[in-house]
């Protein structure tokens, strides 16, 4: 009777309660919550660093650059008025990018720390389904390991959309990823798509001195948000010398040496040709499931690449497999993914969490910032809901004047009968932080008057919210 020799991989397969594929804001938050709930949890990340798009090539680095460009812009344009004389500021783009990378690295380390702290096993490599209950991790050196999982959470996120007639070479025709590590400031940056990402990155380089031309298919900037926001943002960015080609459909883009030529058709069908040295393509993002081998799990992505999930549980058509964040329906926002991450972990634990998708705020990190939550005026009109509108401009706000950040306004939409706040849209300094107040108020279904009757510290930007609520209640803003 001989002993059978077991190979290591035969005998030993790691087993987990929860395996999360992708360590972006949805994935790593989901892993932490699962670990908190007592599940043995693993997380798989394709790249060497944790954090996904948001941390590495999205939210965090773009905010780092936005702030740097803002400082530069202030130094050039506002310091003198503040009574600060400095020699003409000079941009050190290399340092700017290096600082940004430092920020990202620090946050990468933060996530790794959180994984260790919560005893979450981290696997670096490409995660792909081996079956509906096992995930294979293929490491960079070609070796692989198979993890058995009672529950699998797909959190693989999204990638920039690329159209065939816009040949992205990542040198002259670039996506947001490359825009975050430029080695020179463009002379003329053509931004295709004036949505959130285009507006953010376009405004970075506009402030750093580039001429920026936005080519947008819709009628204005950030077209999915309340129309007032787009108009106000355009006014602000126009001050940086940007040009706008709205209702223009891009037909081609070509690189010749250091020159990019973008051709587009205007609303009348007339062809327009724009020449620049860089073209940033920001026409959207697509769910990313490449290499995930969904078929092995019995899953298929829909025609837009998304994974269908049950609304009540975020479970896919295969029991025990869940999907969150950009790979499922809904806004592609880090904080939406985070909520879904927590949600799924709690669902697996048998809890019944809620996500109010209507109250996930949308934010554009330009300066002034744009933030909104709830219904837009256009949506209320379409739905036939009678509403009242109250706005308050930053230029009437003591704090805004003192800080010389007078661009912007807060607009509150309230139910005509009940006064319940239905939508809040703000553009201005620190709007991204201020929108939290609106979310809290709306989660509790506050009326405009409720918020108007709450004390807001003076002098702050948040007074604009209070004043706008007063205006929405019955046109009785105090400082308008």
């Amino acid at each position: 009777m001989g002993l059978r020799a077991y190979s290591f991989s035969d005998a030993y397969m790691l087993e987990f309660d929860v395996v999360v594929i992708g360590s972006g804001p949805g994935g790593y938050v989901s892993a932490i919550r699962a670990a908190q709930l007592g599940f043995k949890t693993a997380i798989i990340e394709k790249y060497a660093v944790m954090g996904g798009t948001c941390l590495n090539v999205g939210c965090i680095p773009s905010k780092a650059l936005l702030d740097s460009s803002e400082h530069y812009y202030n130094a050039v344009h506002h310091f003198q008025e503040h009574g600060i004389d400095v020699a003409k500021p000079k941009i050190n783009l290399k340092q700017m990018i290096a600082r940004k990378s430092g920020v990202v690295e620090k946050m990468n380390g933060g996530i790794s720390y959180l994984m260790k702290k919560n005893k979450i096993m981290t696997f670096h490599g490409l995660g792909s389904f081996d079956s509906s209950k096992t995930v294979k991790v293929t490491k960079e050196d070609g070796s692989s390991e198979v993890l058995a999982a009672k529950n699998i959470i797909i959190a693989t996120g999204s990638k920039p959309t690329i159209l065939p007639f816009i040949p992205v070479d990542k040198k002259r025709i670039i996506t947001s990823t490359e825009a975050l590590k430029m080695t020179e400031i463009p002379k003329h940056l053509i931004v295709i798509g004036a949505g959130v990402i285009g507006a953010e990155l376009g405004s970075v380089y506009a402030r750093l001195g580039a001429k920026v031309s936005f080519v947008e298919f819709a009628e204005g900037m950030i077209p999915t948000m309340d129309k007032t926001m787009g108009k106000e943002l355009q006014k602000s960015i126009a001050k940086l010398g940007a040009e706008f080609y709205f209702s223009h459909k891009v037909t081609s883009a070509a690189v010749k040496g250091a020159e990019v030529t973008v051709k587009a058709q205007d609303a009348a069908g007339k062809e327009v040709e724009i020449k620049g040295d860089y073209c940033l393509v920001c026409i959207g993002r697509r769910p990313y499931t490449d290499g995930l081998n969904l078929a092995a799990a019995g899953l298929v992505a829909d025609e837009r690449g998304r994974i269908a999930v049950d609304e009540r549980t975020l479970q896919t058509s295969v029991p025990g497999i869940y999907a969150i964040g950009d790979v499922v329906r809904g806004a592609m926002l880090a904080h939406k993914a985070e909520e879904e991450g927590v949600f799924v972990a709690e669902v697996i634990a048998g809890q019944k969490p809620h996500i109010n998708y209507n109250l996930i705020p949308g934010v554009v990190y330009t300066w002034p910032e744009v933030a909104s939550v709830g219904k837009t005026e256009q949506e209320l009109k379409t739905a036939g809901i009678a509403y009242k509108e109250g706005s308050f401009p930053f230029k009437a706000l003591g704090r805004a004047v003192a800080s010389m950040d007078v661009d912007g306004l807060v607009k509150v939409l309230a139910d005509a009968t009940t006064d319940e706040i239905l939508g809040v849209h703000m553009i201005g300094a620190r709007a991204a932080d201020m929108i939290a107040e609106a979310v809290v108020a709306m989660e509790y279904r506050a009326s405009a008057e409720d918020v108007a009757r709450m004390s807001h510290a003076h002098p702050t930007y948040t007074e604009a919210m209070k004043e706008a609520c007063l205006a929405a209640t019955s046109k009785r803003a105090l400082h308008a």
Partner: protein
Amino acid sequence: MAIDMKVPAVGESITEVTVATWNKKEGDHVKLDEVLCELESDKATFELPAEAEGILHIVAKEGDVLPIGAVICSIEVGGVQVAVNVADAAPVAAAPVAAVAPVAPVVSVASEAAVSSVPAQVIEVKVPAVGESITEVTVSVWNKKSGDVVKLDEVICELESDKATFELPAEAAGVLEIVAEPGAVVAIGGILAKISVGASVVPAAVVVSDAVAAPVTSAVSVDASYAAGHPSPAAAKILDEKGVSAADVAGTGVGGRITKEDALAADKPASAPAVAVTPAVSAASASVASGSVASGSATVAPERTRREKMSSLRKTVARRLVAVKNETAMLTTFNEVDMKPVMDLRGKYKDKFKEKHGVGLGFMSFFTKAVCVALKEFPSVNAKIDGEEIVYHDYCDISIAVSAPKGLVVPVIRSAEFLSLAGIESEVARLAGKARENKLSLEEMSGGTFTITNGGVFGSMLSTPIINAPQVAILGMHNIVERAVVVDGQVVVRPIMYLALSYDHRIIDGRESVSFLVRVKQLLEDPARLLLDI
């Protein structure tokens, strides 16, 4: 006009009832005296007949626990309602709101009508009947202040009686107004406090007034909020996990919003012990439910316990049994009875007895009769304590413990001392039959002076029964076993039953209790004594 139907005072010591089943639906047309629903108390189930003919509006749902006097439903008396509203108002209004809403011009009138059909606005909190021998209580501590918002079943004060301290839960959610200050001595039924059930507390009221107010007032600040019943994010999760609908929760937040605290307290009246919803517990239950998580992790253990709501009856039985053990000086004395004489007599006459009286001759009649004779001789065994007095009963109302589908019930054989053996047997048969069908009325179960319980039917050899308070003694019968006993110096086989008498030593001395039991034994071992009264 709407007639509010309230929980009737169904009997002493019953302070609340549970709505068991509705025989009618919301909006049904009901006739006078038609049975609307069944109510359960800890003692009995009884039916609620309609007090008027009209359209039924249900206020309390099945499973709701209501204090005596609370509104169960209202009946819209058809013709009047139409007159009050408007000539063409639909006569079959599904709810007051439906009838009122389209009638903008007479809203003020209509809204009054609608609001008046909502449960009483001020509820008087009275001292409950806490026990038959307790006539007054002392207010020891108020846990809430006047003006505080109290929730249903929240403990608002502690009361002391000469026997125990007990907590008083709020009968309704609302704003508290204290009437009896700490230290005050209040009789049973006396008013302790008032609870105003404000518009912001009762969702029903809010909904009605809101629906009415909305069309006429363009003013923004409506007291009754559109957001009434809206759960906060945390509350929504908790309610979902409990399976409680937000509509069933009275929000105490601003404008009737449901706060996290409201949600946490939401199912309290239904299942108090199930509050422990720790993440670990829910994780464990989930894993079983989905079958998806298991093994290694400490939080995931297979479910090996079940939790069920205690019935109202069970809760009361539990409370009372413990109270008796705590509040009396109870002990038990034993004896044995040679059943041969009774069995011989029974064997000899049972067929003729049945033929003549239409009922079988059992042992219960002999025991009851013997007990009645003994009780006459030892009146303290047939007494009760009331405060500082002993109440002697010069009659024998014998409670008989009967196992019924919903638990133990104890119907009473009235004036058993005057009944013949046949009379007792037929009364036992009648009461036992009703018990099995849950048809016993409260009257048939209250007022006994002494109890006989027969554990023998389940095979018990010996037990120590617990007194059926406020009575002071209980006789336990057991199984009859053939034993070797010595009679006249000879070892013979005799059918023997052990008897147990548990008694309250506070008013029954050992001499009396033992003598009582010996007397019962004597009468049973020589049944001719029953006939001759010796």
